[in-house]
């Protein structure tokens, strides 16, 4: 009983540590980025004050993902650079990062008066975090494990901690396991507990919170109404976002993703966070823009190493983001560069230095070349073609992108008809027979029918719609590319990857409904 209690408390402490490290990182980042916009800030005091509630909300929901990212990225780069992965080096790295941030923070205080800010009381935040962590770590919420949960995300991380380096004998663990997910799996062995179930469940709650904040802010932003009906606007936005959150968290896909001890929940969470921040960026400059760009850089690096196909899906998101009015410099520096920064060193270590060559693996030299060429093409497109041919032509670009993805699928079908059609059949069967989908497919059909079809329905929905449709095409194509066939069953890899689309589809539907309401009210 005593050992179990200590395990539980250690995991709770770990969650609080990750939350606090993310909180302080965010807090300092915000102040530093506001100072960089000093000139704009001085003329827009009111604008800054207006955003202070938003800052507090996003800080609350992003602190834990940031903290988890910092841990994962620090561990990843220590291992890739062959620096011993030990308590000492981790503490030292954290020390360097936070001392640098502290220096920048102190520097911002010089001859610069920070505006009054709405701060959600830190003590209250910690109470909420502790309470949720207690629920998640107590073992009262059921979880599901499979062999991958055990070997990929527990045995392998334990070996990493014991050895402290990447080794050639890790073999297929280096080519099939998302390394950020494995590094997250080392948390128990450093903090003194046995599994990451509580951390994963906590992240699921955090995803629900991020989703709720995203829906609320976008619904509120686009609802019509003058200043004197602000309270009504806020109440309606809150109600709509709560309903949307309820539908999302009650869905079987969310239940499966959060309960199954695999990398899918991590991937879905970070993917959605980047999606939400991209939408924020597309709304134009505000005092949080530079902070959002910095966060996107970190989250893109994290996303690319959470699963082996992470880099490819990150590339898809960048392609979809090209339809928005986001400057080319941001797309290259904050979206694309982090992918190269994680992928290239890792491939050099695994295939160049360690010379790993498993008999069967997801990641092979051919796949790596395809991924790097894909990212390179995206970079070249953004740098030289996008502004020249598609400036202010987002719709045309989005249509061409989707047609291109469709054409790619048709081509694959010609090349390998039997396997491609077979995979489609398995996708279809998994949807129809509700393998992990619950009633979501029925809801999807009902919502499609209930949409207020009209000329304004898709207004402002270019990015979410392009992403939703593109994601489906991309998933089908990628599942073909990984060799092997899919299967019918909840555990099928392709099925689980497709299930990750749920928060994006939910967002799209919610916003289309609200959007139309604002149009008709006008």
């Amino acid at each position, binding site marked *: 009983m005593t*050992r*179990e209690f200590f*395990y*539980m408390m250690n*995991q709770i402490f770990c969650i609080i540590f990750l939350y606090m490290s993310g909180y302080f990182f965010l807090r300092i980042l915000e102040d530093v980025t506001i100072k960089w916009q000093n000139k704009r800030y001085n003329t827009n005091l009111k604008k800054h004050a207006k955003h202070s509630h938003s800052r507090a909300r996003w800080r609350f929901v992003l602190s834990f993902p940031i903290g988890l990212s910092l841990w994962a990225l620090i561990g990843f780069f220590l291992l890739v650079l062959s620096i011993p992965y030990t308590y000492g080096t981790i503490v030292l790295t954290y020390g360097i990062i936070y001392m640098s941030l502290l220096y920048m923070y102190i520097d911002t205080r010089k001859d610069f008066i920070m505006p009054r800010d709405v701060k959600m009381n830190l003590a209250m935040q910690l109470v909420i975090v502790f309470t949720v962590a207690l629920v998640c770590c*107590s*073992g*009262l919420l*059921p*979880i*599901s494990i499979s*062999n991958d949960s*055990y*070997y990929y995300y*527990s*045995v*392998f991380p334990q*070996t990493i901690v014991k050895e402290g380096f990447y*080794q*050639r*004998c*890790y*073999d*297929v*663990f280096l080519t099939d396991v998302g390394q950020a997910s494995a590094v997250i799996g080392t948390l128990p062995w450093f903090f003194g*507990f*046995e*599994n990451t*179930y509580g951390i994963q469940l906590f992240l699921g709650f955090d995803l629900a919170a991020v989703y709720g904040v995203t829906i609320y802010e976008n619904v509120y932003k686009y609802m019509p109404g003058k200043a004197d009906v602000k309270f009504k606007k806020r109440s309606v936005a809150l109600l709509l976002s709560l*309903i*949307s959150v*309820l*539908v999302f968290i*009650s*869905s*079987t896909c969310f*239940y*499966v993703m959060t*309960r*199954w001890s695999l990398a899918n929940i991590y991937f879905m969470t970070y993917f959605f966070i980047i999606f939400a921040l991209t939408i924020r960026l597309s709304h134009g400059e505000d005092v949080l823009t530079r902070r959002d760009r910095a966060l996107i850089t970190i989250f893109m690096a994290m996303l690319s190493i959470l699963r082996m196909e992470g880099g490819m899906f990150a590339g898809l998101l960048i392609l979809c983001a090209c339809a928005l009015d986001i400057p080319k410099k941001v797309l290259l520096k904050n979206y694309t560069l982090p992918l190269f920064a994680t992928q290239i060193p890792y491939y050099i270590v695994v295939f160049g230095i360690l010379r*790993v*060559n*498993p*008999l*069967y693996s997801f990641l092979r030299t051919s796949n790596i070349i395809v991924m790097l060429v894909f990212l390179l093409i995206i970079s070249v497109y953004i740098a030289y073609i996008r502004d020249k041919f598609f400036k202010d032509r987002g719709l045309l670009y989005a249509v061409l992108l989707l047609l291109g993805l469709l054409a790619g699928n048709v081509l694959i079908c010609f090349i390998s008809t039997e396997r491609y059609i077979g995979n489609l059949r398995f996708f279809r069967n998994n949807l129809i027979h509700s*393998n*992990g989908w*619950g*009633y979501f497919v029925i*809801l999807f059909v*009902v*919502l499609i029918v*209930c949409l*207020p079809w009209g000329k304004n329905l898709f207004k402002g929905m270019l990015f979410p719609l392009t992403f939703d449709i593109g994601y489906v095409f991309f998933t089908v194509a990628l599942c073909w590319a990984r060799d092997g066939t899919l299967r019918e*069953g*909840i555990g099928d890899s392709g099925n689980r990857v497709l299930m990750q689309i749920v928060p994006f589809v939910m967002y799209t539907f919610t916003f289309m*409904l609200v959007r139309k*309401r604002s149009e*008709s*009210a006008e």
Partner: protein
Amino acid sequence: MPEKGIKRVYEICRLSVLTLVCLVFSIASLIYNNNALSKIFPVRLFTDQHIYQDEDYVNKERPDAYLRELIRYKSVYVPYDVKLYEYYNPIRDENERGSGFVRRYYTENNYTRYFKEYSKVCMTDASLPMNEAVGEVMEAHRGDFNDLGIANDMLRYTFLLNKEHSKETKYFWYSWYYYSFAQEESYFPHVYVKMDEVADADELVAIWDEGENLYVTTRSDYENSLKGVFGEIK
């Protein structure tokens, strides 16, 4: 009614119906998640905070999750230390895929590596039987042991513990490949443990046959009931 009024009423009705649909979906999903879903997506509670769970033992899944917990604070005796790759006089041909693979290098050493890694102390006892000798005798005594389950995956991942010849560790999946494609479950290696005996013992004996069926019992039980049987056959 003016047109604007009709539109407004229509919108309110539409959103009310949608809200109702969403609520019905949520309730139906919650019921489904907590009842029917468990047939295809079994879940468990982990109130004891361990990786190993009682359900694994009942379902005979992931036997090494239990085995690691069992041997963590115990001494284990095995027949021999890890034999190096060169001991097996491998024949290498760089041009031939799979060349250099020696199945015995794995079947004879996986468990030794495992116990050296996860037990408190792993010692060798040359008097213990090995391989074919174990198979001959233990099949008749298998009923005295508790079957923890199939050892495929456990053996699949013992390559993590093998740093001797990285080139050969790429054949990690041989157990999974070899046994998963077998048609009869009798081909799969099992982990057999005398549960009643080992719980309170400090010293254990681990022996295995050529098919990698593992047998774990206490030192005293081995001395009293099995050693004599092996001695007679010798």
